[in-house]
């Protein structure tokens, strides 16, 4: 008894109770469903029905040709998307931070817009530009040269769309590295006799390496777990990757839940391994390159070439934002879309149908808004509490808590959907098919992102600020509310906005978990796509774009934060 007492006293501390409660919550929302899914891979019957356990599913999967082909596809598009995304991101970052390209200041906002755009809509929009049958660009080539050189459906289109819509990650990470790099590191090389290109190659580039590597691994995982892009650009052509295969196994008759879970396991190992690798490499290669006093970083005068770099930036904005999204919005006003869209097909009928007749529109709008605003707020609140416990307290088991809470980073949204299906489709708790299961999935899947940003903000706030509140009599709750929370505000707001945008466009979790009444906008678009109602889905997508933009403006005004600060 005597030996147990200190342990009980430790547990009885409020922060320790908090650890237990949060850990239990994550246990129920992440670990339990994943375990049920793992269990399911050994079954031959659907969830909730008894069946003998065996390795049959694995045997069937590993001996199937489609599995190896589609695993290859997944690796192929992930590598392709990563190479393109990193190349675009790094080149943009370098141009923006290190050259005297004109208008760079003015282009700052347009360059981060792609970060907020939905890659799923991006894929849909690009079909309107580069589909061989009805792509606008093919139309231009057709009338000029009589050829239609592009086809967005298939692997190259998938790689293209992934590369351009994931390039902002590389752009933001690498330009951050470049901005924070102590300029004297480069000056030291210059004054020891190195030329600018030599300095670039031997000092700047190696110092950028951790940032480049970090963004490459990030994009690689994101590309591998992407569902929206390969579903639009591959599934109808029966060009599958693992995510679309899982979806197909679970949705097409006859559904094979066990095989779905088994392929999901492979995905889980794949992304888990990559995330583990990323953490290992990042831990080893993190350089502190932030110096004391800083002069502005060295800008390379490009001479005439600066007009080339300017055109590069403008071309990027044109191809990633203006052309596809302009086309997408335009499509919503056409009865038919073709390589030569005709004025006589201009119509408001799609909008009439979507706004007044289609039954799911307003349900989806309501659900999307609710999930994004409330879900993001809940996730940020929980993240803030976890971050505070982890960074500031000596609570029992806080490091374990940190690890568990970060775990979902390695769980693709679609896989979490599969796990939730397995865990709750036949559960006595009537949660499956409601909007709450989406809420839980969103929050637990994306807590790691807000957690990381809030933790790093919190670490930068000097502990003595809180200690002086303590010493003047404030309880831990009062301290959190009156000192920590206000100081954390920028981090919290940034986390909230990022999650809001992510939830607004979420597709891969929702597509498996929605049912009648809990549709969200992306799901509605997905349905309309498969019913061949492109102009109608373009109307809903346009609504989604403008709703997101309007909300961003409202948040930015209400919380007094610039959108460019959000992504820093």
């Amino acid at each position, binding site marked *: 008894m005597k030996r147990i007492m200190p342990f009980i006293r430790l547990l009885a501390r409020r922060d320790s109770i908090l650890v237990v409660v949060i850990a239990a919550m994550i246990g129920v929302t992440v670990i339990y469903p994943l375990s049920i899914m793992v269990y399911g891979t050994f079954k031959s019957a659907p969830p909730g029905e008894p069946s003998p356990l065996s390795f049959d599913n694995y045997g069937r999967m590993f001996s199937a040709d489609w599995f190896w082909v589609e695993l290859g596809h997944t690796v192929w598009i992930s590598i392709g998307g990563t190479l393109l995304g990193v190349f675009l991101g790094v080149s943009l970052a370098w141009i923006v931070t290190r050259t005297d390209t004109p208008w760079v200041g003015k282009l700052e906002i347009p360059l981060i817009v792609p970060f907020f755009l939905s890659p799923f809509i991006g894929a849909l929009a690009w079909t309107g530009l580069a589909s061989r049958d009805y792509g606008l660009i093919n139309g231009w080539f057709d009338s000029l040269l009589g050829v239609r050189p592009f086809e967005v459906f298939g692997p190259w289109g998938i790689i293209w769309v992934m590369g351009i819509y994931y390039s902002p990650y590389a752009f933001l990470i690498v330009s951050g590295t470049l901005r924070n790099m*102590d300029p*004297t*590191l480069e*000056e*030291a*090389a*210059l*004054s*020891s*006799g*190195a*030329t*600018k290109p*030599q300095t670039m190659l*031997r*000092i700047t580039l*190696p*110092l950028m*390496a951790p940032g480049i590597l970090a963004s490459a691994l990030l994009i690689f995982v994101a590309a591998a777990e992407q569902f929206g892009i390969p579903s639009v650009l591959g599934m109808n052509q029966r060009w599958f990757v693992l995510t679309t295969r899982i979806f197909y196994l679970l949705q097409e008759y006859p559904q094979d839940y066990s095989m779905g879970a088994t392929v999901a396991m492979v995905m889980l190992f794949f992304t888990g391994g990559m995330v583990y690798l990323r953490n290992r490499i990042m831990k080893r290669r993190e*350089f*502190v*390159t932030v*110096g*004391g*006093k800083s*002069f502005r970083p060295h800008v390379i005068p490009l001479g005439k070439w600066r007009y080339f770099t300017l055109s590069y930036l403008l071309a990027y904005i044109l191809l990633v934002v203006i052309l596809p999204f302009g086309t997408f919005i335009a499509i919503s006003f056409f009865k038919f879309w073709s390589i030569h869209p005709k004025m006589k097909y201009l119509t408001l009928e799609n909008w009439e149908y979507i706004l007044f007749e289609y039954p799911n529109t307003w349900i989806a709008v309501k659900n999307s808004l609710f999930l994004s605003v409330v879900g993001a707020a809940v996730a940020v609140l929980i993240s803030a509490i976890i971050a505070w416990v982890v960074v500031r307290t000596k609570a029992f088991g806080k490091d374990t808590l940190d690890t568990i809470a970060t775990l979902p980073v390695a769980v693709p949204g679609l896989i979490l959907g599969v796990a939730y299906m397995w865990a709750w489709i036949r559960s006595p708790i009537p949660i499956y098919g409601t909007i709450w299961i989406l809420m839980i999935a969103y929050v637990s899947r994306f807590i790691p992102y807000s957690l990381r940003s809030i933790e790093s903000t919190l670490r930068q706030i000097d502990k003595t600020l809180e200690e002086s509140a303590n010493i003047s009599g404030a309880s831990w709750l009062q301290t959190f509310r009156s000192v920590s929370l206000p100081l954390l505000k920028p981090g919290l707001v940034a986390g909230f906005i990022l999650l809001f945008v992510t939830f607004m466009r979420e597709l891969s979790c929702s597509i498996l978990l929605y049912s009648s009444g809990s549709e969200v906008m992306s799901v509605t678009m997905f349905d309309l796509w498969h019913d061949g109602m492109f102009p109608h889905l373009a109307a809903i997508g346009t609504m989604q774009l403008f709703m997101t933009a309007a909300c961003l403006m409202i948040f930015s005004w209400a919380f007094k934060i610039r959108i460019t600060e959000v992504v820093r």
Partner: protein
Amino acid sequence: MPDVRIEKLIKRFGNVTAIADVDIHIPDGEIVTLLGPSGCGKTTTLRCLAGFENADEGQIWIGDQLIFDSKQNINLSPQKRDMGMVFQSYAVWPHMSVFENIAFPLRIRKAPRKEIDEKVIRAMKMVGIEELKDRLPSEISGGQQQRVAFARAIVYEPAVLLLDEPLSNLDAKLREQMRFEILELQRKIGITTVYVTHDQEEAMVLSDEVLVMDFGKVIQRGDPEAIYFDPSNEFVADFIGKINFLPGTVKQVEEGASVVGIEEGGFRSEIHSTRTNYPQGQKVLASVRPENIHIHTSKPDQESNTWPAKLIRKNFLGGMFDMVVGVEGKELRARTPFKVEAKSGSEVFIHIPPKDVLLIHIN
């Protein structure tokens, strides 16, 4: 080793003039300090010298080579200036070992492998870090990084060495030690050196010549003793060491002696000085360093420059007494290493030897 000449240098940032028409000459093999408060233009001057900032006007010469001239559009890039620089942040490259950091300038110069090894080892020995050869910068202390930066700056035997507040990130004890080491090294190599600092003690210890800067101008130049004992104006006197100012007017000038009439608060008196650098009628500050105010418990023999005073405060700093004495309402700072018997609050006499009364003109 060549000398360095900066002529009529002007640098503006927007409408702020960072350097206002500065002339500096650093003789061959000497170490010259640019000293001044932050924002005085000293670092900008150094960066113009290094080539990281382009001055708007002026010329810079190394020996008989013109490396910068605004009029002829001559502007040698930093890597061609043959200078070594130690940065305040050390700027030791985090992705290279200590050895690689120091070898970098030689590799750039395509030195043969054997020569690189030899020179790097020699430089490491010189700064006392040969045992750190294979460490990464993250694995060594700030003081050691500082030594790496130093070795890297001298390993290729540049013509000029630039030091930008290299000691300001070190703790006090190490800082004091490094001053002597830097001086010793500089003497050993005999390299022409420009040293930027805001720390007057550092400047005193290290320099052949000190240039005190303020608002982008060189206010006074001279060897450390001249700067301390003969400050040319109020700013320098006040910035270097501690000083008491007694504003007044020169009443009488004769062979080897001036008499200044002081009028401040209740303190109306005459003070004698051996300086005769100002004519009768000139408004001046009679300036006295705290260590030159002598405290006596009984009336001293000297008649002139002696006043009854009150010992307002006495603090023992360890090795010296720091005091405030009041003379007719005027408070003066006094210092002495000798034991002061008088207690705080007691009546004393102060005496200031006329040779220690400096005269500085009031603008």
